[in-house]
């Protein structure tokens, strides 16, 4: 398959052609899930050419990424607007992207994920009575009996970033890799963030909805009534 006219002159090297393939291939709805820029494998934009070009058995040897494939320079950036979003559903989406589980090159032992920027962290919402009942525990002194417990609204007034960081931290793996990829979440209080230069892609639309609020709401309501 030929590259589109817009991209033809701009992607000389063989590894960049994979990005061009994906861009030409996916529509705007899927643009958020573009593959990483460099791969340790020789790939081709022409269908079934990758198998011919690869020296060895491409389809029979499972892919394991090299350090260059997992390099931070090649990672994508995404932005989520937290205003009015439910806390847990937003955190799930952020954790999925940071872990790299949205990519077919996912490897559990390496960091193949993306960077996620969250803005308007002070306006994130929780349902039910959680805003007054959800508590955040913190050790103060190291001594027994020395701790503080804050409610959601109090912590949102004091340090709104911590709410989202803690929610996403609970959804990431616990260990050395988990501690490293936690740093790939960047949370900001207002609508401005420091990462304009990385041109993060907006993925707020991909936050999951409760079925009764989602596209099939009428179908569900009709079923329930029947």
């Amino acid at each position, binding site marked *: *398959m030929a590259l589109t006219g817009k991209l033809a002159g701009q992607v000389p090297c063989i590894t960049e052609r994979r990005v061009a*393939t*994906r861009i030409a*291939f*996916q529509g705007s709805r*899927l643009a958020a*899930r573009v*593959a990483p820029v460099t791969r340790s*494998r020789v*790939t081709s934009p022409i*269908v*079934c050419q*990758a*198998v011919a070009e690869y020296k060895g058995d*491409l*389809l*029979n040897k*499972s*892919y394991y990424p090299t350090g260059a494939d997992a390099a931070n320079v090649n990672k994508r950036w995404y932005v989520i607007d937290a205003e009015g979003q439910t806390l847990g559903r937003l955190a799930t989406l952020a954790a999925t992207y940071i872990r790299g*589980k*949205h*990519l*077919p*090159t*996912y*490897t*559990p032992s390496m960091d193949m994920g993306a960077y996620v920027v969250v803005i308007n962290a002070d306006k994130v919402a929780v349902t039910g009575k959680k805003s007054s009942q959800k508590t955040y525990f913190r050790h103060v002194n190291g001594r027994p009996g020395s701790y503080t417990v804050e409610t959601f609204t109090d912590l949102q007034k004091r340090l709104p970033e911590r709410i989202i960081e803690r929610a996403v931290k609970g959804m990431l793996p616990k260990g050395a890799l988990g501690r490293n990829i936690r740093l790939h979440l960047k949370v900001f209080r207002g609508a401005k963030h420091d990462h304009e230069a990385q041109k993060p892609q907006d993925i707020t639309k991909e936050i999951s909805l409760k079925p009764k609020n989602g596209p099939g709401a009428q179908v569900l309501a009709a079923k329930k009534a029947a």
Partner: protein
Amino acid sequence: MPINRQKILQLASGFRGRARNCIKIARMRVEKGLQHAYVGRKLKKRYWRSVWIQRINAGTREHGMSYSGFITGLKEENVQLNRKVLSELAMNEPFSFKALVDQVRFMRGLSKSPSGQQQ
């Protein structure tokens, strides 16, 4: 038949402390290492199957389908591609993989035509 000392000390290269040099300790650690290798060869097969499944899941979700729906569709059509090859297709041959997902969607009755227009 027991392995001789030389072979044991060869297998113990890279071990920590006395376990790489002193035969009495090396013998113990090498025996344990070989047991771990035996178990690991069986675990390796399970580990990789789960990685392939997660990779296929990511690939099919790019096209709006879940891994479970995809696999039931493939089984119904008697497509014999295994998960290893499917995960490699999802990574290296995105057009072919999309065609597979579209075919599954059509065969399961979730779309009108096999060329990938969703219902």
